[in-house]
């Protein structure tokens, strides 16, 4: 397994790794009235839609909504309020905290030079409506969301895994997914190419890059103490004539003694 990771020069003031009680500070929420554009935008949205919350974080308007109105609200933001680009769309796994996914849509208005984030939360087994008809750039983002989190998107034109292979098991970006893969992932290439019965032949994955087995003389050799392949590690070392027999001979000629004192490669 991996050697434990010890941060040596951590730029974070509070060490997340050593202080287990440390809680990351929350970004403060600012009232929408602080910003003229956002205040009027929020007012217009509130006239038409029933939103849960609206505030400003780091200079961006954040609108929390019910997942059912996501498409209508994005239509409204695009056509009426000039937020004409969907920069990003993805989900965050809050299954452990509340059993929900948070889905966010990050919008940009080129004319107003403002950004809006629309957030909604869905339960694990719920589906969300596709916004592909509003922004075409949502197509692959929604496929990626489906691929990585297993969130089903309704009315998507081609809902298929985007990054992982089609027969992949599990959703890699969920917090419960192990970093080095579950069993299906660890044997994926062996199962697919050779078949499950070859798992024993090939053996499990070697995950430690610093692994050395001094007794395995087939695969490892100690520099300048090489024993024949497969021989016990403590047997007599053999002379390896050269590692690099093409390399030029380096000769040291001693002028006083008038002879070569050293020949080496």
């Amino acid at each position: 397994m991996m050697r434990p990771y010890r941060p040596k020069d951590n730029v974070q003031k509070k060490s997340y790794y050593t202080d287990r009680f440390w809680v990351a500070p929350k970004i403060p929420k600012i009232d929408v009235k602080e910003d003229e554009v956002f205040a009027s935008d929020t007012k217009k949205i509130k006239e038409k839609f029933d939103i849960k919350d609206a505030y400003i974080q780091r200079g961006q308007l954040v609108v929390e909504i019910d997942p059912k109105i996501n498409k209508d609200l994005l239509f409204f933001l695009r056509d009426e309020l000039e937020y004409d680009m969907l920069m990003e769309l993805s989900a965050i796994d809050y299954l452990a905290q509340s059993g929900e996914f948070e889905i966010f849509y990050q919008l940009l208005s080129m004319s107003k030079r403002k950004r809006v984030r629309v957030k909604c939360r869905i339960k694990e087994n719920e589906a969300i409506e596709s916004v592909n008809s509003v922004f075409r750039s949502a197509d692959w983002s929604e496929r990626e969301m489906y691929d990585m989190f297993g969130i089903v998107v309704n009315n998507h034109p081609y809902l298929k895994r985007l990054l992982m292979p089609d027969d992949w098991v599990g959703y890699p970006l969920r917090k419960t997914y192990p970093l080095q893969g579950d069993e299906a992932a660890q044997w994926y290439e062996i199962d697919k190419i050779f078949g499950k019965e070859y798992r024993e032949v090939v053996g499990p994955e070697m995950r430690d890059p610093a692994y050395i087995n001094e007794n395995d003389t087939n695969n490892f050799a100690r520099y300048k103490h090489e024993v024949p392949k497969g021989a016990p590690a403590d047997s007599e070392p053999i002379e390896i004539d050269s590692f690099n027999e093409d390399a030029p001979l380096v000769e040291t000629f001693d002028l006083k003694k008038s002879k070569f004192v050293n020949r080496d490669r």
Partner: protein
Amino acid sequence: MAQHQVNYAASGGLPVALTTVDKIVNWGRTNSLWALTYGLACCAIEMMATGASRYDFDRFGVIFRASPRQADVMIVAGTLTKKHAEFIRRLYDQMAEPKWVISMGSCANTGGMFNTYATVQGVDRVIPVDLYLPGCAPRPETLQYAVMLLQKKLRKKTIFNRQKPKRLV
């Protein structure tokens, strides 16, 4: 009998050189190791640099082919993902015997820094490898040296022993 008389043994006769079949076949083989380009990640940049004019792989007879049918050696340069593992095996199987594989860079050797669910931990899990080339990324000189080592390995072989079909499993 022919009327004209040629003394083949005399010097200045017809240019006849005697050698062993092994030597002449290996001479041809080792000096025309056509490589299958298998650039998968950043190592591919170094592989391209090796092929370009400054390092000039053509001097060794290594000419990159984009088809497995015309290639003798597969240079796996880069990170092999699990999604792609199937295709590298298929392309390897399509290469005509005799064939060799050079695994270039840490990613191809062991998975390298990508200790994750999506990376094959070493191409030798799916195809048999002849030469492992350390480095991240190996310099073009290193790749040239690897090809020279492979040539050296081939020169030692006799051609009369059929190359054993290389099977990983």
